[in-house]
């Protein structure tokens, strides 16, 4: 018996099993990847077919050969079903009714063959060894066609028709990508299906005297399918990356937009320490011009210049941190520190607009896991919105209240409530939709981006109007954040 045959069929079987394992795992990790499941079934069937074909090539008697042939119908049924579903699930083409008909017909052929002793389609009477691929292999030398053979042939033809139809549907689509895919389906899948079917049918009909050889063309077909799946994975990874990049970009735009609303008061805040430094330096110059400079006063001036410089630096640092582009960077974040930082940013704006900001963040609040910049952005957005709402209303109480509390043991809840007019009932359901805004100069992306950020952190952001009674007559925005592991 030729070692070449053994090596070849072992390689085909092993390759098919490997591919089946890989795509089976992919499907287990992401159950939505049904095409991977279909592929796994096809690859397992090809491995089984390779094993059976090798058994046929080495059969000692016609009865043994016939037994292998009967078993061959099991993987053929799974292969048919797997391929039909793969084309449907992965390419989204292929007529459903045609596909189900093919599977049903193949089912009848397979079951009939398993159920009847001489086989329902093909009865092998005598076998012979023929020279094959540098060695000898067993092939049928005399066989009879059984009553259902026409059904097997019809199934094969219908199967090819299903594939060609699916490929043509893709080809007719206008984009280049669909045409390329059509070539893969048409050439790679249907082409090798035809080759395999034709060879086996010619053997069955007695035209060719050689072993049945389905698995090698099927393996090439698996290659085409793998190529297609890999392209798909690479493309979705690229789309995923692109989407993440766009999300970060949009978050950055929203941050810049919020900060630009504050830019006036931030400039004012910055002008305090800068102005103080300038005046102190000028005073020092005048003092130094005196005959006996007042050293104690000069020392006090230098010390003030020092602390004012640090004050200006801190303001710039807070802005810079929010203005830089960053991608999501998860770390343990203390809400108390975060709230303080954001309050520093809006302090001068709140003062200029005569809004009081009250803050109740308890000492022992556990840290949350998140991106410091993006969480600051959410809080800043809600605070600025709150102040806008307060300034927009006739309520004499101008107050925004931030509260944080430890939620159900796994989350921290933060609320930002204002004493404004509240959100109009018709706007409330759409308040988080992009480009919905009630501000004359607003872009309407702040809340949409905030919700995306909170959800990316595994939390929820919601809005509701407060009861109309009392001072805090406006709206309350509420978001939850999961507590960092080991922080509770």
């Amino acid at each position: 018996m030729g070692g070449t045959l053994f090596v070849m069929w072992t390689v085909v079987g092993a390759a098919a099993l490997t591919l089946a394992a890989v795509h089976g795992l992919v499907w287990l990790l992401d159950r939505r990847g049904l095409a991977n499941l279909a592929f796994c079934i096809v690859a397992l069937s090809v491995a089984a077919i390779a094993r059976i074909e090798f058994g046929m090539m080495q059969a000692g008697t016609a009865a043994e050969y016939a037994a292998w042939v009967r078993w061959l119908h099991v993987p053929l049924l799974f292969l048919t079903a797997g391929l039909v579903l793969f084309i449907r699930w992965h390419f989204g083409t292929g007529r459903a009714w045609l596909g189900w008909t093919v599977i049903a017909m193949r089912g009848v052929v397979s079951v009939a063959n398993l159920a009847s002793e001489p086989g329902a389609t093909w009865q092998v009477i005598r076998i012979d060894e023929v020279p094959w691929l540098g060695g000898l292999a067993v092939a049928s030398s005399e066989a009879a066609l059984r009553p259902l053979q026409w059904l097997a042939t019809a199934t094969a033809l219908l199967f090819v028709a299903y594939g060609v139809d699916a490929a043509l549907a893709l080809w007719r689509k206008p984009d280049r990508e669909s045409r390329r895919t059509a070539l893969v389906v048409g050439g790679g899948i249907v082409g090798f299906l035809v080759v395999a079917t034709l060879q086996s049918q010619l053997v069955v009909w007695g035209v060719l005297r050689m072993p049945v050889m389905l698995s090698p063309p099927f393996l090439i077909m698996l290659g085409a399918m793998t190529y297609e799946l890999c392209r798909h994975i690479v493309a979705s990874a690229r789309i995923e990356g692109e989407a993440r990049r766009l999300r970060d970009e949009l978050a950055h735009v929203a941050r810049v937009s919020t900060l630009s609303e504050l830019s006036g008061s931030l400039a004012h805040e910055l002008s305090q320490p800068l102005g103080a430094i300038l005046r102190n330096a000028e005073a020092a110059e005048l003092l130094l011009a005196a005959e006996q400079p007042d050293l104690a006063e000069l020392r006090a001036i230098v010390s003030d210049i020092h602390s004012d410089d640090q004050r200006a630096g801190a303001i710039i640092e807070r802005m810079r941190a929010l203005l830089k582009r960053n991608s999501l960077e998860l770390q343990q974040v203390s809400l108390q520190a975060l709230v303080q930082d954001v309050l520093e940013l809006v302090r001068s704006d709140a003062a200029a607009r005569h809004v009081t900001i009250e803050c109740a963040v308890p000492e022992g609040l556990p840290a949350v896991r998140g991106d410091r910049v993006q969480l600051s952005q959410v809080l800043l957005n809600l605070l600025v919105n709150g102040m806008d709402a307060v300034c927009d209303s006739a309520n004499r109480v101008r107050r925004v209240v931030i509260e944080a509390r430890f939620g159900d043991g796994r989350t921290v809840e933060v609320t930002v409530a204002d004493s404004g007019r509240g959100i109009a009932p018709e706007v409330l359901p759409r308040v988080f939709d992009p480009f919905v805004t009630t501000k004359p100069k607003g872009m309407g992306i702040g809340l949409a981006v905030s919700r995306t950020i909170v959800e990316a952190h595994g939390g929820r952001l919601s809005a509701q109007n407060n009861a109309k009674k009392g001072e805090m007559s406006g709206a309350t925005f509420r978001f939850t954040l999961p507590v960092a592991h080991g922080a509770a």
Partner: protein
Amino acid sequence: VSAVPTVHVVDDDGSFARSVERLLAASGYRVRSFASGAELLAALSGETRGCVLMDLNMPVLDGLAVQARLAETGAAMPVVFLTGYGDIPSTVRAMRGGAVDFLEKHAAKDALLAAVRRALERDRAQAELRQRFAKLTQRELEVLRHVVRGRMNKQIAADLGIHERTVKLHRAALSTKVGVRSAAELTALAREAGVG
């Protein structure tokens, strides 16, 4: 003591107020600083002289509100506003309220000192003017109020129940005391001094 012209620096930012105080003191001015408009208003009396150098943007009572309160009290002083960033509406309101100047916080030293000099000069002029008007008798002041409103001698005489010639005499006397020659000049000065 309070009659000595003083620059009143008002800013909620202690460090900034201190720096301005230092510069003005080193430039030879008498300076007092206040952390809020309320502190300033509480410290003022009718005799307070000088000017106010004030942050426009302060919490609770902002610069414009302090300016308005100052005008209501007898201790109206020229105001110089300092601001981190000036927007046009508040600048206009400040000027209408009689602000002498409107400067950015990091304006050049010379501009700041010049503004303070102008404000003190105006305060001095106003004080001097008030002194001139202070020499007027009760009756002369009454006549002055009518003149400022643009009334004729005959009308004033009828209103006050005195003879037209007496009104003319009062007018001549008060014009000499204040040192003006025309009714228009008198009206302008009376407005400036806050009389009438």
